[in-house]
């Protein structure tokens, strides 16, 4: 396992935590906070996939 794989896993966990906070804020009707956390979650997932995607063709 390379360092970038660990980084990708960490980013997925960060994304899950951010989505969790986003949903909680949405449930409390705090829409601005919810939007912020959901965007953080989506961007983290995107970064995780980009980091994990290999640099060359198979």
């Amino acid at each position: 396992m390379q360092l970038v794989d660990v980084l990708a896993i960490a980013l997925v966990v960060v994304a899950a935590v951010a989505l969790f906070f986003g949903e909680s804020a949405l449930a409390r009707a705090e829409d601005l906070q919810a939007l912020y956390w959901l965007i953080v979650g989506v961007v983290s997932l995107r970064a995780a996939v980009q980091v994990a995607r290999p640099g060359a063709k198979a």
Partner: protein
Amino acid sequence: MGAAAQAIVPGIYAWAVTVAPAVLDLRWDRGSVAVWAHGTSVVAKLAAVMAPFWLAAGPFAERRWDARGRVLSLWGFVLSCALAWSAAPTTVGPLRVDALRGVAGMMGWALFALAAAAPALHRSQDDERIVQEAPLVPRKGQSKRGDSAYLAGGALLAALLQGVGWHVAGAERALLVRFVALAGGLAVIAATTELALARHVRRVPRSRARRLRSAMAALVALALLGLTGVIFGLR
């Protein structure tokens, strides 16, 4: 997989939507957990608990006694459910059956009948393959167990996301939270699947730098979002 095994899931579903609600009533009652519905008889409790065991025993009985074992499991399950339902306090009065639950129960039992009566599905590895070439072999040091760990982790995170927002007051907001939770869970599972698949692709030297460079836009955006959150949080 035998016919008894393939009937387990629809059988459990049918049990869960028809028998379980008539007998079980999980709730906090003066500091202790109450499991059974008020006034449930011992016969109903015993029959309701035994029913899934008949189902679970089906594959073993089928392996040992073939069709006779399957029939025994099927009738044991159906009769246990019928006994539990008829002996339950909230019994079969037509006015007491919720319409939606009635439709769900009807579909559940229809599915169960279909799965129990259908011929057993046999897995053939050749039938599942859609390419002619030899099967791919995992590269050295990249086991299937690693892929399973990735997928299990993703499924766990997605399941945790489903635990939020079950007590939201408004129906619209509750639906919105459920929708966001489902979408978030699916996105997490998709991302972990991508991570697992990426392990099997051949990498070239210096791919680490290249991969970081390709992810730089998303990482910078994430850093900016984090900074924004800190700034607004401190204000």
